[in-house]
């Protein structure tokens, strides 16, 4: 076994590069490829060696593409040992180590397999070339490998799913299939005679979730990340029902702006003096598709997905633009007041970090409701709040009457 040290066996380099790309690989996986090689796998062709690496190191189609691309960067020659692949070549000999200043030529030879396969008596020779050869564009070699680009989100699909699976409201429902030991013993001792066992239904998660997602404008850079989080929550969160609706800037628009009249002439007025007077905003539309083309009336969203659900708003709350927008704040507060009427818990997830909220509408919203950054820890805290953990905010909103 080649010790990873000053010498760099090309598989070790490949292994290291995969690890740097976040592959969950440990010494055990490296050893697995080595035992496969020792057992005779991966010697007959360039392709077969690649297949061994990707079978043992890749765990998805995307990862297979990465392994293949990186492998081609290191092993640039195609070889085949066509004659008699069934009797595997002797493997005791170690492949030649690739030195740090290893040239492409050396890599080529390396890829040929164990050293004894190399022609003997190969003595490196130098010859004077007499100046640089002419170079035309058509002679430039095409790169023998492709680059692979994979999205890497701040929170992985799995981590997001794990965070949201903690949102549980277990209720026993459905057919009685589980033995209730306590109840059975209780009944037996109460009656004093033989009695049939007591069965009860299995526990199921009844937690409902309504995701309200801000789209377009300042949220555009976060679209794919937010989509990934929404997918993780709805696919793997094991919730009873997940509704996803989209909006632009504020969930609902058109709150009565007359309460703002007294602020005329002020540059950055606070909403606090009129907070109690802001009427709840119940009318309007949300979109059921990410392109904001299919409107649903807010009333329908609430009656089908909202009532009794935990509500999560995914939006930058104006933090991306870095501005304070009183009208936006008014609309948001008016919506939240109405939402308090039909939902027992609300949280806000902001794709921007708290440092970016300062001085913007987002910071003001965070004074009225729990707002967390959309990272792993933020999601855990958001789920804690949805589970009922108290999270005091500076100016809590009181529920407004929902006329629906």
């Amino acid at each position, binding site marked *: 076994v080649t010790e990873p040290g000053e010498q760099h066996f090309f598989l070790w380099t490949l292994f290291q590069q995969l690890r740097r790309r976040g592959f*969950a*690989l*440990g010494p*055990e*996986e490296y*050893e*697995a490829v080595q*035992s*496969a090689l*020792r*057992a*005779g*796998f991966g010697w007959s062709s360039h392709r*077969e060696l690649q*297949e*061994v690496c*990707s*079978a*043992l190191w*890749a*765990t*998805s*189609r995307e*990862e*297979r593409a990465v392994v293949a691309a990186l492998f081609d960067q290191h092993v640039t020659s195609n070889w085949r040992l066509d004659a008699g692949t*069934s009797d595997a070549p002797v493997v005791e000999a170690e492949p030649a180590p690739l030195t740090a200043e290893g040239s492409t030529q050396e890599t080529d030879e390396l890829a040929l397999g164990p050293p004894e396969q190399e022609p003997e008596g190969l003595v490196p020779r130098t010859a004077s070339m007499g100046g640089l050869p002419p170079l035309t564009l058509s002679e430039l070699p095409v790169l023998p490998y492709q680059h692979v680009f994979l999205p890497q989100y701040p929170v992985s*699909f*799995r981590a997001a*799913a*794990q965070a949201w*699976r903690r949102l549980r409201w277990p209720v026993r429902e459905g057919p009685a299939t589980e*033995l209730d030991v306590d109840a*059975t013993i209780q009944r037996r001792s109460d009656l004093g005679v*033989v*009695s*049939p*066992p007591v*069965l009860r239904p*299995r526990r199921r998660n009844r937690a409902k979730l309504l995701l309200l997602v801000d789209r377009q404008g300042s949220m555009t850079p976060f679209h794919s990340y937010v989509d990934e989080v929404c997918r993780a929550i709805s*696919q*793997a969160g*094991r919730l009873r029902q997940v509704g996803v609706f989209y909006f632009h800037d504020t969930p609902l628009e058109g709150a009565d702006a007359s309460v703002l009249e007294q602020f005329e002439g002020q540059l950055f007025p606070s909403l606090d003096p009129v907070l109690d007077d802001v009427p709840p905003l119940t009318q309007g539309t949300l979109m059921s598709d990410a392109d904001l083309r299919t409107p649903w009336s807010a009333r329908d969203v609430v009656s089908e997905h909202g009532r009794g659900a935990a509500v999560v708003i995914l939006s930058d709350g104006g933090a991306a633009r870095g501005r304070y927008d009183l009208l936006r704040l008014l609309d948001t507060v008016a919506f939240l007041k109405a939402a308090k009427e039909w939902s027992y818990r609300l949280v806000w997830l902001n794709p921007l970090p708290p440092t970016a909220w300062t001085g913007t509408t987002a910071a003001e919203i965070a004074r009225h409701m729990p707002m967390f950054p959309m990272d792993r820890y933020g999601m855990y805290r958001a789920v804690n709040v949805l589970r009922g953990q108290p999270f005091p905010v500076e100016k809590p909103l009181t529920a407004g009457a929902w006329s629906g």
Partner: protein
Amino acid sequence: VAKVRDVDLSLSYAEAIKNLQPEREIEDTRVDVVAEKDWPRRMVEREVYRPSAELARVTDLALALGRPLLLQGEPGCGKTRLAHSAAYALGIPLEVSYIKSTSRAQDLLYTYDAVRRLYDSQLGAEGPKDQNGQPLARLARNYISLGPLGRAIARAEYGRHSAVLIDEIDKADLDFPNDLLWELDRMEFSVPEAPGMGHSSAALRPFVVITHNEEKPLPPAFLRRCIYYYVEFPKTRSEIERILRLHGVGSALSKKSVELIGELREKDLNKKPGLTELIDWVRYEEAREATPEDLAKLPDIEAVLKDRADIERVRRDLAAT
């Protein structure tokens, strides 16, 4: 942490598949208890299946390293069939476990029928008895039945190979794969309900095939213990033709159908037709004695396309030509 296991080269699927009899005698898995000796046998018919050379090699790799083989890929590309084919080719029994959303990891190993034991115990002396005249209810082990993986481990303990198919693992709870880590790693388990009961096989490892439809991501700790392979739709026409011939489709029809399926798969369809659909369709058309010209009109295309928009689109395109 698993210790380094010996590489076991005694089984090779790539070799075994080269020469298959139409049927062979394999240990019967449809029994309650895995016998230590004199196990029942039954005739099993050959599985019509043609793995790519790559897949056969990867299967051998999984067999040699004693790791589970995780298969992913388009529906209808023969992920499940590989397990049947490998078990037949290697002459080992196949234990099948179709995962449901309510499946628990423990069910793969064993189930304990506490309710029946309770009923039996309440009957007292009238209850069912074992051959020594002792009431069954006295011992918990009388109410334990081994699951597919549990039977395979028990069989391995007695020195016999078996294959285990865990079909569509992503249908189960997110914890399901993690709950199996230890058992898949060590191939041993014990039954807490019946002290002293359990099986382990350190030397001989059952061959585990897991299929996965990408419905849910699997935990990394589980994935890294598996050999991963993505089953693709066959890349060359001749390969599809060979597969069709294997299923008894005549050459004229298979040539035409491969051409058609290639055209269909090139269209931007919502759901691309898989191999299973193709085989079903062509076999039906062959039974109807359709000619290649009939086939070009795409009759009964509902067998191949499973999306209304796709069917309408293909019909429109067909009318346009």
